């Protein structure tokens, strides 16, 4: 029995940890409330400049310059009162996700032919890492790292709600923004539901669920989650109608730019021109 108990506890703990991790990394807004440099910028200017910075990263073909841009993002994190360790952890969690599957195969000669660097064998198959393959992959990972850093910086220093509103100002179609906003909200609600359901199951069974039973509960959950979300959407729509919604939400717009925003804007413009002139080759 103690064995079953431990096993089951393990499943539960890992689900709970995963939920908490996601909840914390997607929904924590405490960094956005701090009074650092990026937090003080007008969100409209921020969205434009960070988009420009990400485009810069796409154009750069020189690893040195990429490293400079990457350091620039770290500098920005520092002056925005974001703990560097926290920031690095946050960005490097996402990077393997994006890059591994693309960068890893590109190392080898069947994708990137060229001068071979090293050769090894697995199960009698010969793998050759090529020089252009290696430098291409390094460039790719650097690029991903830098652009992910910029995106994470933007999302850490801007409240999600503000970001959604800015998207509307830039005429991103309302459907996208609504869907985006609702998804965000419902992911949160889902996590709560999952968390509470597990608590509920635990309190009803006293923590002793046999392993396969636990699995059937998980399956059941996913099916009803869909139904619940459907019902929820319908009800929320009713609540919107009740308060006068008729298709187009009227938004509250209260942003102001200051000289600081324009200085920052010019700086980014300079970086962009510099990159186009020197980094593109």
């Amino acid at each position, binding site marked *: 029995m103690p064995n079953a108990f431990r096993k089951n506890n393990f499943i539960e703990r890992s689900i709970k940890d995963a939920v908490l991790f996601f909840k914390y990394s997607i929904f924590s807004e405490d960094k956005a409330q701090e009074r650092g440099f990026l937090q003080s910028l007008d969100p409209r200017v921020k969205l434009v400049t960070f988009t420009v910075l990400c485009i810069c990263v796409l154009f750069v073909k020189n690893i040195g310059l990429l490293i400079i841009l990457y350091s620039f993002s770290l500098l920005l994190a520092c002056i925005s009162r974001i703990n560097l360790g926290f920031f690095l952890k946050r960005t490097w969690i996402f990077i393997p996700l994006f890059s591994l599957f693309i960068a890893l195969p590109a190392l080898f000669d069947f994708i990137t032919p060229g001068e071979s660097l090293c050769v090894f064998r697995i199960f009698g198959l010969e793998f050759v890492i090529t020089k252009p393959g290696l430098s291409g992959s390094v460039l790719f990972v650097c690029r991903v790292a830098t652009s992910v850093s910029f995106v994470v910086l933007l999302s850490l220093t801007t409240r999600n*709600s503000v970001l959604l509103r800015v998207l509307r100002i830039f005429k991103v179609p309302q459907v996208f923004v609504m869907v985006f906003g609702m998804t965000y909200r419902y992911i949160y609600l889902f996590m709560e539901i999952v968390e509470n359901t597990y608590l509920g199951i635990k309190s009803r069974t006293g923590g002793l669920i046999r392993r396969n039973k636990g699995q059937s509960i998980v399956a059941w959950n996913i099916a009803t989650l869909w139904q619940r979300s459907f019902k929820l959407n319908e009800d929320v729509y009713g*609540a919107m109608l009740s*308060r006068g*919604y*008729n298709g187009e*939400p009227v938004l509250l717009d209260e942003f102001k730019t200051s000289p600081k925003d324009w200085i920052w804007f010019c700086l980014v413009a300079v970086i962009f021109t510099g990159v186009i002139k020197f980094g593109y080759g």
Partner: protein
Amino acid sequence: MDESIFKVVNAHFSYLNRFSALCGIDMEVRKGEKIAILGANGSGKSTLLQLLDALLFPNKGDIFAFGRQLLEADFNDPEFCRKFRSKVGLVFQNPDIQLFCPTVKEDIYFGPLQLGIEKNEAGKRIEKIAGDLGIGGLLDRAPHQLSVGEKRKVAIATVLVIEPEIILLDEPTAGLDPQTSRRIIDIIIEANEHGRTIVTATHDLHVVEEIADRVYILNREKQVAKSGPAQELLSDTELLREHNLTHMHKHRHNGQTHIHPHQHLDHHQH
């Protein structure tokens, strides 16, 4: 004081044409009245409120509001829709449904902005309501990250800010601490004193007398079991017990266990 606001005539409603939720309700709400709808879980209180708010429409029977029949097609007319929505506000039972904006502030602004109320005017109202309800500190928070009680207060604020003539409330005091609950009752009573009509669905017998002149009791057959003045219905213990509305108290005297219904009316005699 007897201008008719809502008149419900033999209204039937079923969800998906399968799960019946109301089976022949007759009801009348007059201007300036305070009405409570009581009934056990699942007796159709929430459904009835949604019919009054014209979110659902009866499968059979009619509902009249302000002397005009409520028809789904009429709500395609934006002007009619806007007028109706500014006159009638509904506080949902589940505040998670009511609050859908990214921040509390935007959520409270939502109604007024949709209904074409000036932003400055809306701002003033919000400031006052936030003060009254003690939610000033929550305005920049995300609604889904609040406690249940805080959410409920915000949900009430989102409706009060529209300043509707008729306020429909679905269990406004469920899950609130006694003081907050008191605050909300006071706000409801105050709104009524300003001439607003109040319809509340509730289980909370403590508060019924204060927030209702007249009471409708719905039974398990999803019909009106009885309606009448609050005082009269609330002193009918048998009736209340029949509809799951009394607390049953169990305690021991001299080694013997009794079970008897417990009412709160006697505490309120001053």
